[in-house]
């Protein structure tokens, strides 16, 4: 089902301002959409509005072109997986999964069939007659998914479903969720604050901050072409290095003259209008080349080294104390408090308008 949000806004009772406002979004049928954002950005509110658990203050919610604003949650052909799983503690796994169909007064044989089918897909057949308190966190997670699956929803909503699992299991479930999404042929909307989940699972990412959409697009776009400073800082780990400076004679120069960079041709063309203006330059840690070069080079002092095995993160300081993170292959040898030369890979630079924070 195609989900459309037209100028949607939400204002809670007793609040001064809108929690989120002017959200326009189109999620095509069978897409896996991840709504990403820091805590308190309104992403859960948005999901709850799509689910019908919160009312929509303004704007329209359309499912396949039909307005859904006033439709009851149970009639929206949706299913939702909650962060806490929200399994009914007094019912067995089987009853939990059968509950929605029972409420819809489906035939017993059909209910049984659907529950067994879902249990088989999720490999929870053994636990069908256990109570939620008797099974582990990962299994509860599967039951929660199963409960959503038996409804055969047209839209699958998930609110940080993996945040209560340990790292290993989370990695495993990520893959399974994508597989499940493909098998079910549904539109999935997935809320998370974890950029790794967003990058690995999504067809389309919606990044929210302060109640506004910051960028919509494919995961690679977020990494390669962040739309503004917020996106640049939010996506990617370690965080992108951002330097404040100005354009002088087509060169990027920081206030203290420690960095002097000549952009590549394409960037230079875009930066023409910014001659003499303040801009921010961003570069990801892996776009530094080790060694001394004629131009675009820096000399920094290594403060902390984080060894990750295949690569190492060097937390370095400029002479004036400004910090920069550089990642280099793990087999290079670096020592603390050593001075080293690096140079910028000019094809990996991002320029932002310092005033509007938008990408140039």
């Amino acid at each position, binding site marked *: 089902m195609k989900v459309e949000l037209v100028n949607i806004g939400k204002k809670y*009772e007793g609040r001064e301002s809108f929690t989120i406002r002017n959200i326009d979004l189109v999620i095509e049928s069978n897409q896996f959409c991840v709504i990403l954002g820091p805590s308190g950005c309104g992403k859960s509110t948005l999901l709850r509005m799509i689910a019908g658990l919160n009312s929509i203050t303004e704007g329209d919610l359309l499912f396949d072109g039909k307005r859904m604003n006033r439709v009851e*949650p*149970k009639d929206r052909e949706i299913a939702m997986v909650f962060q*806490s799983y*929200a399994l*009914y503690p007094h019912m067995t796994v089987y009853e939990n999964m059968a509950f929605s169909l029972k409420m819809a007064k489906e035939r017993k044989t059909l209910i049984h069939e659907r529950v067994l089918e879902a249990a088989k897909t999720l490999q929870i057949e053994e636990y069908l007659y256990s109570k*939620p308190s008797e099974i582990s966190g990962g299994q*509860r997670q599967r039951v929660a998914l199963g409960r959503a699956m038996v409804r055969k929803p047209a839209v699958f909503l998930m609110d940080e479903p993996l945040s209560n699992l340990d790292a290993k299991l989370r990695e495993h479930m990520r893959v399974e969720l994508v597989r499940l999404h493909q098998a079910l042929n549904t539109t999935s909307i997935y809320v998370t604050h974890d950029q790794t989940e967003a990058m690995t699972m999504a067809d389309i990412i919606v990044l929210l901050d302060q109640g506004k959409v910051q960028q919509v697009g494919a995961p690679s776009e977020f990494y390669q072409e962040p739309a503004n400073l917020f996106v640049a800082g939010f996506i990617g780990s370690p965080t992108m290095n951002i330097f404040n400076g100005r354009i002088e004679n087509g060169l990027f120069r920081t206030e203290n003259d420690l960095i002097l960079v000549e952009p590549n041709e394409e960037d230079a063309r875009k930066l023409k209008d910014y001659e003499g203006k303040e801009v921010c330059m961003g570069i990801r840690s892996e776009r530094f080349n080790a060694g001394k070069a004629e131009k675009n080079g820096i000399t920094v002092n290594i403060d902390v080294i984080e060894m990750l095995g295949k690569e190492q993160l060097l937390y370095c300081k400029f002479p004036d104390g400004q910090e920069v993170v550089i990642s280099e292959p793990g087999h290079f040898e670096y020592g603390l408090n050593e001075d080293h030369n690096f140079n910028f890979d000019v094809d990996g630079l991002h320029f932002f308008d310092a005033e509007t924070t938008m990408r140039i």
Partner: protein
Amino acid sequence: MSRKKTKNDALYLSDRQPLTTAKLISLIISYILLIFWAFVILWPLAQIVMSSFNGNQGSYISIGGEYKFSLKHFTYLFNETYFWNWVLNTIVVAVATALLTLLIVSFTGYAYSRFRFSGRKASLMTIMLLQTVPTFAGITAFYTLHSIVAAVIPGFTRQLFLILIYAGGGIASNTFILKGYIDGVSTELDDAARIDGCGNLQVYRLIIMPIARPMLAIIALWSFIGPFLDYMMPSILLNDPKSYTLATGLHTLINDQYNMQQPAFAAGGLLTAIPIVILFIALQKELVSGLSSGAVKG
């Protein structure tokens, strides 16, 4: 066997720090106090049990003297008084009170916990403050109210009115208790149930109520016990000895010299405990279980 014992003796296995002399002394003192306290409570109870079976007791209970096992006080209670009427009255009042309280408190507790409405805080405070006024202070109002209602509905007996007073009296504090309990149940369960197709009442009946069962059991037990313990309201409100509840009825056995039958009173007191104990045993499973574990991550 003895080897095992010495091994255990050698190892100090308790999680607590070993006792010092000062701690040992204070421990002994606490035990003495507790034993004294237990004695103060248990000795009168033992006297009641013993006197009710002692055939040598006259109209007054006297401590000491000969003991002769007999059931004559029970026979007196069953044959010479309205004891069975009182039992039936009390059980009817108690069951009705418990059911009515549960029903009303279910609605109020759920509403106060889950819904935001204007006047929510104010009304909650108001009923709590009204609770500080003793029920007995409203006695004249109760009389008036009863005569007004009874004029319209002839079947509205004083016993029915008593049920309303008991149930009404319990609503405020029980609403607080149940609200607190339901507050602890994740609202995501409500959301899940709503998506699964439940309306408000179904959310309560199918999801919240089963989870809140331990607390509902306690509320039911308390409301059930109330009419067994209260002497004041029925003695003033009810005018026919046949319509008395147990506490009031039994009181007639000790409040004047002509009817004085203290051992029968003791026997009646003993029997009063039986229905309460039965209910307590029946609800025990609910009282101790923590059903809400496993609802959310745990």
